[in-house]
């Protein structure tokens, strides 16, 4: 494996390791961005109004049982194409539930007395949402986005099965060629990427969460 990793030829070029990492990150962030755009407003709405909580909780639980590989294959067969679109659909379907569930959980965990106090101070519903509920619920919201990221980054590996690039290429091509060092390289890089992204979100959480919430 070291020979593979330390050979500079393997790092550069269109099919080099850097290019694969960039592709992998592109799938990950495209899917993550879309998941956030869809799930965050719905989660905030459910958390703020407390209507539809049943949906948020059960969707989060049920999604854990969904096999990602099967989801991807269904997306490929239903869209009748191989490529970015089915992968995006499958990854977004994986990303939505954890974000939705934890956004709801974050908002519903806000003490009712705190919201009452905010209302008593004359805050409107929108102000309560943006100035009280979101800041207090932020740690959980971020942890939901964090687990969605982990799900997506590891599942993006499977994109290679349907002819896309990304780090999964090493796994899929290596398997076909029985080229073990190549498979191992791919697996290791995906793992490192996952750990790096996880650390990134831990950092974001530390910076973004209000210092007032950290005292306890």
């Amino acid at each position, binding site marked *: 494996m070291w020979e593979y990793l330390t050979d500079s030829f393997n790092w550069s070029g269109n099919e080099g390791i850097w290019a694969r990492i960039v592709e992998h990150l592109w799938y990950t962030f495209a899917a993550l961005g879309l998941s956030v755009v869809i799930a965050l407003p719905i989660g905030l709405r459910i958390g703020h109004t407390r209507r539809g909580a049943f949906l948020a909780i059960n969707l989060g639980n049920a999604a*854990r049982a969904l*096999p990602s590989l*099967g989801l991807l294959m269904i997306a490929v067969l239903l869209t009748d194409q191989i490529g970015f679109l089915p992968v995006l659909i499958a990854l977004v379907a994986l990303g939505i539930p954890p974000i939705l569930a934890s956004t709801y959980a974050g908002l519903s965990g806000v003490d009712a007395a705190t919201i009452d106090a905010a209302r008593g101070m004359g805050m409107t519903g929108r102000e309560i949402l943006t100035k009280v509920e979101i800041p207090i619920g932020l740690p959980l919201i971020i942890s939901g986005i964090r687990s969605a990221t982990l799900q997506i980054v590891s599942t993006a590996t499977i994109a290679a099965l349907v002819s896309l690039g990304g780090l999964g290429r090493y796994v899929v091509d290596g398997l076909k060629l029985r080229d073990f060092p190549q498979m191992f390289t791919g697996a290791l890089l995906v793992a490192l990427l*996952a750990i790096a992204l996880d650390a990134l979100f831990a950092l974001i959480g530390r910076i973004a969460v209000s210092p007032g919430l950290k005292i306890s």
Partner: protein
Amino acid sequence: MTWIGDNLGLIWEQLREHLYLAIVPVILGLIISVPLGYVATRYSWLANPLIAFGGVLYSLPSIALFIVIPAVLGTKVLSTVNIIVALTIYTVSLLIRNVIDGLRSVPPDVRQSAIAVGYGALHRVVAVDLPIAVPVIFTGLRVVTVANISMVSVGAVIGIGGLGELFTLGFQKDFLTPVVVGVVLSLALALVADLILVTLQRILTPWARVATPVGEVA
């Protein structure tokens, strides 16, 4: 629909393999995490590093583990042992937190009462501490069981994946039915396993059902 009828044997076989690959790691993981969690509550400086390490392990993509494990263990790439070891690692890395939290949730006065009435260390852990920790441990057990069941199918990428093999089969033949059958059975398996765990928890914690005394508002 005729495909299902013609391939019942195959479907049944993959379902059995899927169940085996998902459940064995849960049992192994439980057997490992309970003593490990107990040790971590005895020597409490161990607890936080263990939980943190578990968090990192759990963040590793399953496909990566399935491939890296044979290199570490020297097993064949197509051996089911790889899947079982990988999922056992996930189980322990998630469950360790719940075991530690569960054992910590035992009230000190309960523990002291047990010692006072003459329970030995091992007897106390088995008869007092663990039963009290059951609800917290089972929360983790349910999450990890469901996650394992869905993760097994990723193994199909490297050729062993229970129902996941129906996914690759359907993909190769450009044929939706096997994929849908695989997804539905995988979901059903997760649901049934979850129900069994909920039932088991109720049986193991009979006091939880009478926790609210008659006449008192919950």
